């Protein structure tokens, strides 16, 4: 009987220390590394409705940010890869057809028109990207 008690005490003592160590581990172990750049992305669709996203990313180019947003859900895009890189045709299901009505998705970087396509637009910490549905009127 005494022996059983000793065994139980021994097992409990060891389990208690294991529990404490596990607690320390889960409290202090390095979490999955977050991206080091924080950027905001805003989508202004054909109705003028704005939808904004904030994320931390290690992406080098805007198209990678778009892929990350797609993976996270609540964002989608379509595009074609042409001679000038990625040409965005649709965002969040809104298709801009230039041939039909002169509509296109423009990219604004920190509120200025971007100089690059999405797949060559560099991403810097604090950048603000806007995808705006615009129509070219002749």
């Amino acid at each position, binding site marked *: 009987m005494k022996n059983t008690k*000793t065994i139980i005490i*021994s097992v409990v003592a060891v389990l208690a*220390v*294991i529990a404490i*160590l596990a607690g*320390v*581990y889960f409290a202090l*172990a*390095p979490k999955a590394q977050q991206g080091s750049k924080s950027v905001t992305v805003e989508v202004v669709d054909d109705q003028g409705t704005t939808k904004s996203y904030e994320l931390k990313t290690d992406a080098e180019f805007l198209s990678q940010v778009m892929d990350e947003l797609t993976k996270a859900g609540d964002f989608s895009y379509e595009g074609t890869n042409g001679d000038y890189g990625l040409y965005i045709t649709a965002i969040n299901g809104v298709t801009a057809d230039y041939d039909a009505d002169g509509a296109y998705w423009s990219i604004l970087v920190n509120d200025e028109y971007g100089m690059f396509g999405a797949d060559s637009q560099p991403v810097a910490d604090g950048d603000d990207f806007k995808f705006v549905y615009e129509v070219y009127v002749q």
Partner: protein
Amino acid sequence: MYSNTEPDNKEHKKIFSVLDIATIGVMAALLEVVKVALQAVPNVELVTLLIIVFTLYLGPKSLIAVWGFVGMECAVYGLGLWTIMYVYVWPILVLITCLLRKHRSSQWPFVVLASMFGLFFGAMCSIPYFFMGGYATALAWWVAGIPFDILHGVTNFIGAAVLFTPLTKALDRISRMQQ
């Protein structure tokens, strides 16, 4: 002032008998063999248990066997940061075992000791990192190794629970034969 011409009347008491020296040599060799035999299995080792059992029979003298084992490890693997850890970590085990010696009638204090030693192995080994990189480095190093420490503690518990009694019985028989 000093008249050292007279021979010391007191018989010089030898700390180590010939038998001790032979035993310590065999123990150090056994530690190394057991270590090498099990090193393919991560975190499963019988060195802890063997040091506990040896210390129960030899007392603090087993420190010599422990450092002999550390010396052999250095000869095999070369010097590293782990050398510093080994030089003080295993003697801690010898010391605690000496303090628990009077509880020898039961195996459980020593099963718990073996297990705790495994669980805190990483914590004890992180001390050199404290001097190298400060508190944060030591803590990060320790925390990163906790899963291995837990495994180490569990396997030490099982190993000691299964093997402590057979080993002490065998050593009892050997020490009876020596008398």
